[in-house]
């Protein structure tokens, strides 16, 4: 028996990028120098390990679906797709767009996507194998039609834009993985030209790019890597750079007032939170009242205002626009008196001392300072922090349950997802309890059987409406029990460009909000 689970209105959206396809596009011209704060480690989308890789990979490679400027899904390399069911198991039926070419001229076919799936499932290549764990089989129907069959439902697959990148099978098989990483070839709007580590990446517009409406208008892009905030700003002010990423929060207002300069700020898909040891029965945070006390103790709004210069957005459990966002769920109000009362009720009228781990490597702007503010607020109500700074390598290993028996105390943490966002995969990691070797609860210091069952069920739900309802349900329980940590804020990232010279229509999605195909030089 075969039935359609959801239509998803994909066919209607499919037509959107091609409204102007019939018009002959103008050839790309000119050179633009821009600056990023960080650089990619890998240019191979499946070997990529860091979020920053996406800024660069997203210019050269594409996926089946893309999130548009309205934060709605758009068909991209997929002409249409539909979630169906056969024999009690779900599958996604995907029709690939015809006429799409790789930078070397090879046409994109289902065989390339199958190869992409195989690489994405190979732990020797991919660091994201868990995203393919529920897939049973990749089935090619014809050159532009294939099916991804699941042994059980996997909602994160749909929420994660069908996860697969278009990569050139023949090219990689011919040159090998290493050469592919050095000279990447995709279907994206820009071709790779050269790279000097710690210095720059050069890209060139791909003249045969399939999407004429979004074809680049700038021929050459030189992306400089300038990690120091003030130097990046100086490079922009002196005119050496005409577009910059990550304006420092303290300077956003100055940039907004700068004549001839335009800015755009976006909430990043990174969710900051405070992890606390609720697992160990001896831990003070095992008691829900202590966790609630912490929630009342920290004035997150003040931290956003004063430490982040307003460049952050408070979230309760799920961010605005994400699947499962519940506007009725309100954050715990800042109420130190209530926090002290809850601590007293829990048997700690004089408070207690606890280790508090702070990330000192700036993964997000002013993160160290934000951590210090968290722990100062906690100390003020009686959760007296012995703050310990951790650089990135220590911090990331420390948070892993397979490395660490359990974590004591508080830990400044974060979880990420794409935009608009779906917390399914992240919650499986830090809300579901840890299962040794099972891939669940890899950073979890919580154990709530009811939440475990719900998070597990959420993973199998592919219908977006049902998923929305389930996320709302979990979010409410998670919020009441302050389970899986205390959510705080999401950073705001600001881009700036010289309006007199550059045109730019950013797409607010990671990898694409820095979509350089939307950048142009004013004639």
């Amino acid at each position: 028996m075969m039935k359609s689970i959801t239509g998803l209105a994909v066919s209607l959206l499919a037509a959107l990028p091609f409204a102007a396809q019939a018009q002959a596009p103008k050839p790309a011209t000119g050179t633009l120098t821009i600056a990023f704060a960080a650089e990619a480690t890998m240019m191979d989308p499946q070997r990529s390990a860091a979020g920053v890789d996406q800024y660069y990979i997203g210019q050269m490679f594409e996926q089946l679906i893309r999130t548009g400027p309205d934060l709605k899904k758009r068909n991209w390399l997929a002409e249409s797709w539909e979630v169906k069911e056969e024999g009690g198991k779900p599958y996604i039926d995907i029709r690939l767009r015809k006429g799409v070419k790789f930078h070397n001229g090879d046409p994109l076919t289902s065989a390339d996507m199958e190869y992409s799936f195989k690489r994405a499932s190979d732990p020797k290549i991919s660091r994201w194998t868990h995203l393919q764990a529920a897939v049973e089989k990749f089935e090619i129907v014809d050159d532009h039609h294939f099916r991804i069959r699941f042994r059980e439902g996997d909602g994160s697959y749909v929420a994660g834009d069908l996860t697969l990148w278009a990569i050139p099978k023949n090219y990689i098989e011919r040159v090998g993985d290493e050469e592919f990483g050095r000279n990447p070839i995709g279907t994206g709007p820009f071709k790779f030209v050269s790279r000097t580590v710690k210095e720059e990446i050069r890209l060139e517009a791909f003249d045969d790019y399939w999407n004429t409406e979004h074809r680049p208008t700038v021929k050459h892009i030189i992306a400089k890597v300038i990690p120091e905030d003030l130097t990046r700003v100086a490079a922009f002010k002196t005119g050496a750079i005409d577009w910059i990423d990550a304006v420092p929060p303290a300077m956003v207002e100055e940039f907004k007032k700068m004549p001839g300069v335009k800015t755009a700020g976006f909430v990043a898909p990174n969710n900051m939170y405070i992890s606390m040891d609720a697992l160990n029965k001896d831990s003070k945070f095992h008691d829900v009242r202590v966790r609630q006390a912490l929630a009342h103790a920290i004035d997150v709004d003040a931290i956003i205002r004063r430490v982040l210069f307003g460049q952050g957005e408070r979230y309760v459990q799920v961010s605005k626009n994400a699947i499962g966002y519940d506007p009725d769920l309100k954050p715990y109000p800042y109420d130190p008196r209530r926090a002290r009362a809850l601590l007293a009720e829990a048997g700690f009228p004089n408070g207690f001392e606890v280790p508090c781990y702070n990330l000192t490597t700036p993964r997000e702007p002013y993160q160290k300072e934000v951590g210090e503010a968290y722990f100062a607020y906690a100390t003020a109500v009686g959760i007296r922090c012995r703050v310990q700074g951790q650089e990135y390598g220590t911090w990331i290993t420390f948070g892993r349950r397979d490395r660490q028996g359990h974590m004591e105390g508080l830990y400044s943490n974060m979880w990420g997802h794409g935009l608009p966002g779906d917390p399914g995969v992240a919650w499986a990691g830090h809300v579901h309890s840890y299962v040794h070797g099972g891939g669940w609860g890899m950073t979890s210091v919580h154990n709530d059987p009811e939440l475990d069952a719900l998070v597990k069920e959420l993973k199998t739900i592919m219908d977006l409406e049902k998923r929305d309802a389930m996320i709302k349900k979990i979010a409410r329980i998670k919020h009441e029990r302050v389970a899986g940590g205390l959510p705080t804020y999401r950073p705001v990232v600001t881009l700036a460009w010289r309006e007199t010279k550059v045109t730019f229509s950013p797409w607010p999605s990671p990898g694409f909000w820095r979509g350089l195909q939307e950048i142009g030089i004013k004639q």
Partner: protein
Amino acid sequence: MWGYLGQRVWQGAISILGASIIIFMISRLSGDPILMLLPNDATPAMITEARQAHGLDRPLLVQYGIWVQKALTGDFGRSYRWEMPALKLILDRLPATIELAVFGLLFSVAIAVPVGVMSAVHRGGWIDRVGRVFAMLGQAMPAFWVGLLLILVFAIGLNWLPAFGYGSASHVVLPAIALGWYPVAAQTRIVRSAMLDVLDSDHVRLSRALGTPERLIVWKYALRNAAVPLLTMLGVYFAAMLGGAFVVETIFAWPGVGRTVVEAVFSRDFPVVQAGVLFTSILFVLSNLLVDLSYGLVDPRIRDAR
């Protein structure tokens, strides 16, 4: 002379070996890179397999032995993070680091020698006071602060020089000043005190009595005598600049070894850390060796003693 050279090369080799052992052991005590390399759902079997693949399951001494054996053939392993040969990653960055250190040192000497000499000649005068204040300013201000000030004044304010980057002669000016200003104070003091000693010596008094022009006495005879302690210091500072330029490299987006190695430490990228430290150690030893050899050039007594 050759015996002396051989002895110094041998001592240098021991120093490099010592540095390589220390960095090898310390980097491995600092954390496990495997968890950063594998997917979140990696099973214990996958973790074990990856550890074996990178040779991290063996005893530390065995790992070190294998590393030395391969390093001697030019194989420093592959960067875990960048997935390219660690040696290439370091060697590609090395010219930029050497260039920055050389120009930083040249800047410091270009300031310290005339200021030190003039301070000694005009002891207690306004040149002495102004020179010492300028030199002390460099020592009092951290390099990141100096770097930002230079960008503010010369890149943003005056628009004379680029704020960042690498390539042309103009790019090296600001980073070299930011790096080279710090040691100016110490070098100035060394030159000044050595010059004061020499200027008070009998042979200088005799030269004056014989009517030798003061310019020649100061800049030729006295300065040459005062150069040995400065040379010693230059060797140490050059080595420190090679290894410690991380802050300046970051401020000016300078693609050097310092930034590469520090970021490799954060990601526990052992092959890159080891290759970076090893090459910095080699340069350190070489620069000190060159300084030792140069003593003979400025002081014939040392040359003859060898």
